């Protein structure tokens, strides 16, 4: 039986993704460097989260400064489900993700309806309010002392492969959300909501769908994080700088592009390891400086730089920066 791909999937992209997954999956068999192993796992997590952020911030142009709220909700719901309901790990991830997605709809559905930057401003409030309330609700989050999940030997090591699957799935979803007919609708909504509605694009439904998907994915990332560290506390899970880190991954890699945020996540995780870890008092300012510089000089981030290089090397191809948008 021949596998039929939808017409908007380039076989090359599908094969590339599969090949990358296979290579990454067998890498640990050739080394036993735990540090690299862990760093890669965190990179996969960063890729998944940055891409999920980008669906909203890039594809729809609704930048969120409060995605940590869903990360935390997903993490704590999953942890509670494992502790209280004895749910198996994977099921608890899905459950935590779904709750996080519903939570995002509660505040996002009304604020996404408005033109302009209302949504972004609201996210600042959502992030802060969720953090405060959840720190106080110690029946849910264990308060500032946090929650501990039962330690499972080797789980941390195995989560590497779960991470690959998570990152690959979000990457595939990113591709589908851009290249499929839905992607065209999203592009139309981003350009002009009213015009899109006029030609029959269900803007409300699609915006909510993207928000929900983004919330679910970030929630699953939070649940993954909880299982990975087997200890979580609200100050860290709901932290402001966590929300900012995804904004930054998106901006570094190229907002609204398919692969940019994944690239941004890789750079960001490395950056945090080598640079920000040595200057813990400077990290917020460094994030800020990076944001300012990228937005001023190359709004499409690394993807923009790459396109510029291609244009220079092969002017005959006629690559424009708009190519990154489709």
């Amino acid at each position, binding site marked *: 039986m021949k596998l039929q791909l939808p017409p908007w999937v380039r076989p090359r992209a599908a094969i590339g993704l599969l090949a990358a997954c296979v290579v990454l999956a067998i890498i640990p068999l050739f080394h036993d460097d735990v540090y690299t192993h862990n760093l890669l796992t965190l990179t996969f997590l960063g890729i998944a989260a940055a891409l999920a952020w980008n669906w909203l*911030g890039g594809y729809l*142009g609704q*930048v969120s*400064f409060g995605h940590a709220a869903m990360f935390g909700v997903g993490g704590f719901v999953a942890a509670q489900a494992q502790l209280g309901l004895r749910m198996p790990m994977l099921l608890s991830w899905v459950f935590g993700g779904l709750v996080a997605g519903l939570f995002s709809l509660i*505040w996002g559905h*009304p*604020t996404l*309806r*408005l033109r*302009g*930057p*209302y949504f*972004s*401003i*609201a996210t*600042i*409030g*959502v992030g*802060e*309010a969720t953090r*405060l*309330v959840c720190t*106080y609700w110690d029946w849910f989050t264990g308060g500032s002392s946090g929650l501990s999940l039962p330690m499972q030997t080797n789980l941390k090591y195995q989560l590497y492969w779960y991470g690959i699957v998570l990152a690959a799935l979000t990457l595939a979803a990113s591709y589908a959300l851009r290249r499929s007919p839905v992607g065209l609708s999203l592009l139309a909504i981003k*350009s*002009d909501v009213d015009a899109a509605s006029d030609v029959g694009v269900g803007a409300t439904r699609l915006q909510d769908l993207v928000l929900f998907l983004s919330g679910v994915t970030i929630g699953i990332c939070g649940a993954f994080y909880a299982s990975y560290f087997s200890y979580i506390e609200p100050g860290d899970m709901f932290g*402001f700088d966590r929300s*900012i880190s995804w*904004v930054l991954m998106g*901006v570094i890699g190229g*907002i609204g592009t398919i692969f940019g945020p994944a690239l941004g996540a890789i750079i960001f995780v490395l950056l945090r390891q080598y640079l920000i870890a040595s200057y813990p*008092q*400077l*990290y*917020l*300012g*460094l*994030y*800020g*400086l*990076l*944001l*300012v510089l990228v*937005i*001023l000089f190359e*709004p499409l981030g690394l993807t923009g730089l790459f396109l510029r290089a291609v244009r220079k090397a092969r002017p005959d191809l006629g690559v424009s920066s708009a190519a990154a948008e489709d």
Partner: protein
Amino acid sequence: MERFAELLIAAVLLAGLYATMAYGLGLIYGVLRIVNLNHGGMIMAGAYAGWYLHAALGLDPYLSLVLVAGAAYLVGIATYRVLVRRLPRGPAGGVQSLLLLFGVWLILRNAAYLLFTGNDQTLRTSYSTLAVGIGSALVSVNRIAVFGVAIVILIVLHLLLTRTYVGKAIRAVAQNPDSCTLVGIPVERIYALTFGLGTALAAAAGLLGSTLFPFNPGFGAAELLKSFVVVVLGGLGSVAGTAIAALILAVVEVFAILVIPAYLTAAVGFVLLVLVLVFRPGGLFGQRVLG
């Protein structure tokens, strides 16, 4: 009843501060169509500036207000000239200006952290603990002073916008920048000036706020949200609308303490924002552009 009067007075006095804070944000948004996310940063910077001038030079916060607002005005103009001006206008620039100004805020926040640590600071003056009786309620003199200064600022702003040439130019640019270019209004200069004015208002509000509340480098995030609530509620640019909206927010916040646990008050402004956005997206008084 006594408690009711006390809370009402507290709310009214707080509203003056909220109105000043919000007007800066609304002015910039009304004229440039940019949400100045660095508003929170400048509120924080104003608070630290007032605190530092008081601690180092013994300058009274109400005297340093002029100094700090003036400096913030220049900072605002510089921010516009160096950064904001380079961004594309229109809906595509919206995301970029949000991110850019957010970056500036993070830098300011980090600078404050490096200079003054992350500890809470308070600005204490000799009259911080003085209070006078209004009816049966005891009211802090400082709160009344903050209210008075805020009212003066708002009246001056109103006069500036309605009675002076520059003010009229600002309002004209808010309505239609292209036509302004045609009749010879230097639009770029008006943009820079407006950005400076909005920034100065943020810093002034921050300084006033620092005499009332403890603050740290994270100060300003909640204030930004509150400013935004007031702007959305009161519509753009109307001084009276802003004042009424600020009063509504202050009353809701102050009285919320009676019915919900204290840790939830942080969410009050946000809930109000969502309610307004859903039920009155044009603001309570309909859309108006400055004046």
